[in-house]
């Protein structure tokens, strides 16, 4: 019973912390309208990474600590779009479309590996994610791209670590259909794109295939005995997560303005996982609502805490707070999972 009461407690704590930050920000005379529209952009640009976790969690493959696999597919898609000098919304959509088949192939092999380490997917995914980055580093240096804007300025071969999108599709979604409500700028284009992805996920989990995926995630033996293909469905979940992560990086990059190669993809897994856990997911089953709530709470806290902490406390405090919250929440979720497990055994 006490477990039930505790559920939602983290959300309440974080929610109140967020309120506190808003109050302090107001007291420090920050521009609230700017902060709120900023929080909306942060929410949508990071949100798809969080949505991308859902298929894998629901298929019982665990938290996608190896999202760098999918993100790499997205980076490749964007590199192709830049290579062909596609600009504006066309460039963005081309990047997304090119990334999808690459992500499917990556996801297939990623899923095959995860099927072999059943029960230890989380830890295996962390190492796959780590191992994949140096592998791709090699690719980035030798890939035969020829657009000068992507290559190292000196020497002229190998992709540069940070490719500017200024001439291609920077902020195409951020600045699509921006409508001012009062003093707050609402980026409808970006939110619309996010909403479409979210709706596709919601709809997918209403279909027969989606329902089977959820059942396999929660009741593997039951489904095995019912004759459902466990491994193929798990791979499907991994592929979906990988594809969504690829789309996620495209959205992120257009907002951020740069394509970050090399070590870049490794930086997204932990914050996304933290966000969905903040949203109330226990790591066994996840909903789009949890992902949305979690992303907003998590991202907005950082948006607000950075300037506030830098003003009130020592500089660099923002980064420290960020690390404590991100990793602390993941640890908290693992502790909670263990508790839930004991409770199930009875």
């Amino acid at each position, binding site marked *: 019973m006490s477990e039930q009461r505790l559920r939602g407690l983290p959300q309440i704590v974080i929610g109140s912390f967020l309120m506190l930050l808003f109050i302090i920000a107001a007291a420090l005379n920050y521009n609230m309208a700017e902060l709120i529209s900023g929080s909306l952009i942060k929410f949508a640009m990071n949100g798809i990474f969080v949505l991308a976790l859902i298929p894998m969690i629901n298929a019982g493959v665990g938290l996608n600590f190896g999202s760098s696999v999918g993100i790499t597919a997205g980076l490749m898609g964007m590199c192709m779009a830049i290579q062909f000098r596609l600009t504006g919304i066309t460039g963005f959509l081309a990047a997304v479309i090119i990334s999808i088949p690459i992500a499917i192939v990556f996801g297939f092999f990623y899923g095959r590996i995860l099927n072999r380490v059943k029960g230890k997917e989380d830890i295996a995914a962390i190492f796959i994610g780590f191992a994949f980055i140096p592998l791709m580093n090699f690719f980035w240096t030798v890939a035969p791209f020829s657009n000068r804007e992507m290559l190292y300025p000196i020497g002229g071969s190998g992709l540069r670590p940070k490719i500017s999108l200024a001439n291609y599709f920077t902020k195409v979604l951020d600045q699509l259909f921006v409508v001012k409500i009062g003093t707050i700028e609402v980026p409808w284009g970006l939110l619309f794109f996010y909403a479409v992805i979210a709706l596709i996920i919601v*709809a997918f989990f*209403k*279909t*027969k295939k989606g*329902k*089977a995926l959820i*059942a396999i995630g*929660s*009741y593997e*033996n*039951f489904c*095995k*005995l*019912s*004759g*459902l*293909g466990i491994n193929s469905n798990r791979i499907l979940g991994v592929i979906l997560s990988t594809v969504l992560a690829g789309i996620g990086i495209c959205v992120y990059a257009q907002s951020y303005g740069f394509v970050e190669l090399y070590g870049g993809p490794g930086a997204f897994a932990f914050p996304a996982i933290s966000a969905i856990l903040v949203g109330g997911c226990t790591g066994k089953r996840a909903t789009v609502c949890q992902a949305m709530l979690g992303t907003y709470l998590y991202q907005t806290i950082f948006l607000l805490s950075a300037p506030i902490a830098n003003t009130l406390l020592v500089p660099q405090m923002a980064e420290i707070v960020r690390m404590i919250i991100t990793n602390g929440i993941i640890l908290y979720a693992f502790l909670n999972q263990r508790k839930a497990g004991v409770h199930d055994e*009875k």
Partner: protein
Amino acid sequence: MNDCITIQQISKNFGNQKALDHIDLGIKKGEIYGLVGVNGSGKSTLMNILFGNRVISESGGYTGQIRIENRTIAIANTKDAIKNGIGMIHQEFMLIPELSIYESINLNKEKTINQNKQSWLQKISYLDDKENKTLAKKTLKTLGFDIDVSLLVKNLSVNTKQFVEIARAINTDDLKLLLLDEPTAALNTEDSNILMKIIKDLAATGVAILFCSHRLHEVCNLCDKVSVLRDGRLVSTYGHQEMSVELLAKEMIGSEVDQMIREKGCTSEETILTLQDFSVKSPEERIRGLNLAVKKKEIMGITSLSGHGKAALCYGIIGYYPMTGEVFVAGEKKNNTISDSIAKGLFLLPDDRKEMGLMMEESVEYNIVFSSFQLKDKFKKKILKLFSVENMKIIEPYVKKQIAKLNIKCTSQKQKVRELSGGNQQKVCIARAAAMDPKILIVMEPTRGIDIGAKEKILEMIVKMNRDRDMTILVASSEIEELKRICDRIVVLCEGRLSGILDPGASEEEFALALTGELNNE
């Protein structure tokens, strides 16, 4: 009172389910006290309380009082129990395979060189292997057993393991109470008799013994006193003179239950399922080279002692465990996968309902329709001609009808299955099988852990499916009495081999012989 152990007003709940309801018992020194009851009547729970099993403390402990020699004791864990002179012999072996016999027997009470008073020093002092070996040997000798004590437990036969287990329990200086939970379940008749003698000898030395068994004639022979448990209540107690097998059986089941009896002889001559040289490997069991033919519209019982192959046979047929040999369904060869089994019209309801038979956190409705929605494309509709989703307009009335038909007690069809009682959960399983409408249904332990009233209802449902839908049904169960009532033929397995196919009218003796593999089957 000169009772060695007194149990007063012991109660225990598992969730909302009452496992024990105010039990009073008193066992005298040197007395052999029998405890009988059907599965789920609370025998094991009582044993677990007395031996401080973790299951009890983890699910909220017990209420009531336990007194040993007029001292009230609290048993929170196994250590407390052993300290108070209680030993236990388990139904399933609780031995560590990689240890030798003498290590097993002396486990946690090893003699050490240079016995020191300081406990922390004792813990790190050298083990006196020689002394331990002689001690183990001596203990085994009292059981009439002479064996090299340095053999590893994993290499021993089932019988020997059981004796090591017993030796472990009695290898203590101040054993006051010995608990025996179905000690003879894994033994053959001969070894059972040896065990009986040992128990009697042990009792003669002044140890109180609580003996728990399904084999009623053993209880009648052995016990000075016997109590019957039914649904967690102590319903009656008899002395040695008063008890008889028939009386105990009647008391266990409760006479008010109407027993379901099926008219037989409606099977066709056509063979629907054929097993040829069929072998299965499961973690616990083996099936070795089985040949079997099941007729259409037949209800075939499958029984064996636990660990002798009835579960492996069922799981093997459906393809859950790897099998070799050939399986033909209505003349067609079936491959090794579960999906092919289901495509060919097989379906299995497993013995482990919680893990494999139900989705505990889902609704009654979803559980009933899930398999047929996913695998048979029933209850579905298309959206945009592309995506299939559940058609609630068909599902809701269908489930409503099934709930009424099978008399499933639930607050609504959206109630979570976890909240239902065992009997109703099993009914949900059967409803799921009915929705699948297979040609051959395999049901494992359909009445395990279910109260008596619901048992009859479930047997009735199985028979009804067989009659109304011409379904061929294989029922694997350890309840031979139930199999006798519903089956056309009963397959008895021993050590993974076919030991005999018996007529339901066969006598107890024939079944006992077949179960132990000693039936001559020409």
